[in-house]
């Protein structure tokens, strides 16, 4: 079984380069969120999402010599958190991000190493999945909620493509998913102030196929 799969990959990798405008890839990585401050009653708590793995898949198209565009989906199971110096509350959650990036790629498609920048936009779906508790710690600052919300998302990043073969590319890249703070999932308490943007710094390693 393993031999037949390898044979299939090699067949794809050795096909002619003329029609290699599309790139399909998938990978995994990890993300670190930025923290936001929630202030209530003169006290401050840190709110956000815990660092977590991320898996991502994308499909891209080389539009021009150096430009490409790709649609990307990322799933990230990060727990919501509220934290002060003396207390901490968490709540299971995950997010789904889908966005379209425009990539500027240096060098040519035939080069082995090809750096690129990416910028794009999309939306991110935050969903609290934990078990609700009546009295969550630090609820004077906010509530970690079993609900979901969409937020617009800006995606900025870059990376490098390493051509393993004619059709097989290994990518190392990073992204910053920038969204408004998800105030439904992490709902500030009455009288608590919060806001700002939420950055989600992601690093991926992916493998893609040109076709």
């Amino acid at each position, binding site marked *: 079984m393993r031999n037949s799969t390898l044979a299939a990959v090699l067949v794809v990798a050795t096909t002619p380069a003329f029609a290699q405008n599309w790139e399909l890839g998938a990978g995994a990585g990890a993300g670190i969120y930025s923290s936001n401050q929630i202030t209530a009653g003169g006290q401050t708590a840190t709110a956000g999402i815990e660092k977590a793995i991320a898996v991502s898949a994308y499909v891209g198209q080389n539009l021009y010599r150096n430009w490409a565009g790709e649609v990307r989906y990322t799933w990230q199971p990060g727990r919501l958190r509220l934290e002060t110096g003396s207390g901490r509350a968490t709540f299971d959650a995950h997010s789904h991000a889908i966005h379209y990036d425009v990539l500027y790629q240096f060098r040519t498609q035939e080069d082995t190493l090809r750096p690129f920048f990416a910028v794009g936009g999309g939306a991110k779906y935050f969903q609290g999945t934990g078990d*609700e508790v*009546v*009295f*969550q710690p630090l*609820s004077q600052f*906010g*509530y970690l909620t079993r609900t979901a919300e969409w937020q617009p998302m800006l995606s900025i990043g870059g990376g490098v493509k390493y051509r393993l073969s004619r059709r097989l590319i290994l990518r190392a890249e990073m992204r910053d998913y920038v969204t408004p703070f998800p105030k439904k999932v992490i*709902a500030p*308490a009455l009288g608590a102030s919060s806001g700002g943007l939420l950055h989600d710094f992601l690093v991926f390693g992916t493998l893609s196929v040109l076709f």
Partner: protein
Amino acid sequence: MKAARSMGFAPARIVVLTLLALGVAAAPFGRVVPIGGQAADLALDEARGVLYVANFTANRIDVVSLANAAITSSMNVLPQPYSVALSPDRRWLLVTHFGNFAAPQAPRNSLTLIDLNSAARQTFALSSAPLGAAFGIDGLALIVTESEFLLFDPVSGGVQTIGTIAQFAANTLPRPAGEFPASVVAVATGVSGDGRWIYCLAENYRFRYDVVGRQMVVLGYTAEPPMGPRVVSVNQDGTSYTGGWGLFDRQGIILSQFPNVSGLLQVGSHAIDSTRGLIYVHIPEGTGLNSTNLPPPVLRIVSSKNLALRETLQLPENLTGRSLLDASASTMYSISDSGVMFLPVGALANERRVSADREDLVLRSNSCSLSQLRGQIRVVDLSGAATAFYLSSGNGIRFSQSAGVTPATVDVIVDPSVAAPNPGTTVVEISITAPQSVRIPQAVRLVVNRREPDQRGTTVNVPGRLVDLIADPVRDRFYILRQDLNQVLVFDGSTHQLIRVLDTANTPTQMAITFDRRHLLVGHDNAQIAMVYDLDTFDAELPIRFPGGHYPRSIAASGRAILAAARVAGPEHKIDRVEMATRSASVYPSLGVWENKVDINTVLAASTNGASILIAQADGNVMLYNSTPDAFVISRRDSQRLSGAYASSNFEQFAIGNTILNSSLVPVHRFTGAQVSAGLAFSGENSFRLSPPGTMERLESTLATRPTRVAENPVEGNESFAFSRSLAVLANRQNFVLLTRSGFTVLPWTYDAATVPPRISRIGNAADGQPSLAPGSLVSLFGTDLSPISLSSSEMPISTALGESCLTVNGFAVPVFFVSPTRINAQLPFSLEGTATFVLRTPGGVSDSFAMTLRPTAPGVFQIPVPDADLTTPAVYNARNSGLATGSNPVKKGDHIVVFLTGLGRTSPEVEAGAPAPSDPLALTLIDPQISLGGTELPVLYAGLSPGTAGVYQINAQIPRHVPAGLLIPLEIQQGGSRVSVNVRVID
């Protein structure tokens, strides 16, 4: 259930009432042997196994077999055999014939001497009527005639006159129909068990004959009522005897006498059982009795020492003359209405005798408690037999079984209404009826104490009739007189434990301690002696003998004289002076310049420094004896009548009833209040007053302090005694002791220390604290000093008594489930309407009234405290996860919610306040509430009391899809014009 209970109760009550109506309190004890005539006397011949009965009217001596209780033969003798006497050697039976016929008939007075060995008979004519005869140990018979005392030798037939009687006149025959022999002849004789002493009781005379010394002593007497029954019973060694209603010593002093006697000569009897120290006695009690209105006959078994009652047995008929005990004291033989009665007193242990296991059943509760009180009594048959019994009592008292068979443990259930109108202690009798029992069971005294929070003191149960109280001035003790059992009860002043019981003579009335603090003296109403006890050893010493006919009811010891106020069997009652050295008393010829003539209700009170003795008389007279001149120095009468408490101080102050008197006995202060004092005491310059229905006052410089209520009422007065002493200051000056209804109450010295009464500052519903209340609402009272302790109760139904706080609304105690110094939670009755007036009672006092106006509905959503935060959240529950709807557990569209509230008003069906709400059927609100969320009306699925809770309602509703989401969405409940709103978080 209630119906079944009442059905079970009614027949038992009917049985009891029927039995009582028939006069059947118990089974008769004793076997009657009719003789077909009127028995006048009897003699016991155990050796021959027979009893000789003088059949006065049938002119014969009936011989009754002891074995089968039947007449075996009769000896016809001369007419009117009145007395029979058996010689010590059992050879001779001497019969006297009372034939004292008046002209025109000729007297037929004579003697018959029967030789029981040969059946030979001799008759002797007498010139005067023979009244009685008795053999002494010397074999000679003492014959009492109407004019002389004769010694008759049965062997020789010789007669010797040893004395004559002047002014003694016997009745003559014939007599009016219906008279019995005892009242015809009116003379009785008795011989001591050792045959050495013969006593005789006649009209106005008593005789004592010393058989060995052959000396006759004649004592005159007067008695009112007459000295009946005309029977003499002597103990084994002749040191005491009962004659009529008196227990005499050899010198003729009344050691004790039976109380409340009728004086009937021909009804009653007694016999001394020297072996057991008992007297078996039947004397009808009551005044104005005659043969037509006699009470059911009973045999009382009393102590031969002081006539203290041990038990009472039902008799089949009246005893009417002499009673004799056999040598083993196993059977008593008595003359009775029908002839002779056999009473197996020695086998009483085998007779059915039903009794309760206690004299008192004490149930204590808070006056605020509306719950039933429960206690237990055990009904047993002392013989161990299974015997039927019935219980009955007053209204509001039920039994787990009002009829049963011994042994049985019976629950006594007391409805709160029994004591409700009378805060303090209520006493009710539980009567026991046992038709198969020869013993008449003594009723159990049910003592129900429902004290209010501000009633002070610790009560100690002491059964019986308690009539006097004094504190030992130098020992940490106090003494209580228990009159019904003739006892001095000695209690430790610190532990309040009974440490000694001292027997008194009959009907002790008052105590005194001698000035040297060594002796306790006890006066009596039914004894002509005062008991003397050594207070260090508790030994009873030689009593003080009073002049004949003097009953020392009150006694007091000054530094010089010991005085006694004596009830005198004569026209005037006297003050006597006691000489401790000779243990005697003598009557003062005068009280200084005043006549020695006092009211029968006179009490004496000595100051503890020995300076004076106050003499208080019920007719209003007061006198003062001063020990310095040893004289009566003051006599005044400033009122028509005096009664109640009395006391003397060491500072020349005196107190009687409600009046404080100065050193000249001039009233200087009058206590307010209609009720006369029950107790007065001085300590230093302070005076203390106990008055019904249970209030203590401390008087300093004649200014009354605020009255302090004590735990229970003072003992009830006795009609025969105008004065009482129910308050004592213990020598340690740490406690007061008060005689109260269930026994005594101990008050700390600082009983009236300043206390802070509760103050209600705010009242709101217990859900959200808003000042709007409805019938059935749970309420919170806020204020200060609302309770000395914090206490909560989850008991169902909710009790109206919690801790020491009692909350009433419009006068009715309401269920309370939480008390603390600053907050009390309670439930309002569902029946309440209009204005609700709240009053709170605590040990600190009574709050001012706090009035609130009730609305038909006043919903308030409960607030749940947020842990670790000074926050609350409304009691809105998310049915999806059964959790409280909070910011972290928000409700979602489509969820079901349950809102918990109070104040939704009346329900159908009605539920009693404090009771758990039913689940089947559910108690629905009479006025439907509307509930909306963010302006969107929610469908109400249920609105009513939450099953199993008291005063808690719930509204179940569903959240539609189209309600707005948000962190603070208003959830509004409207009901009958009332509205309440809370915020909940709603998410999509």
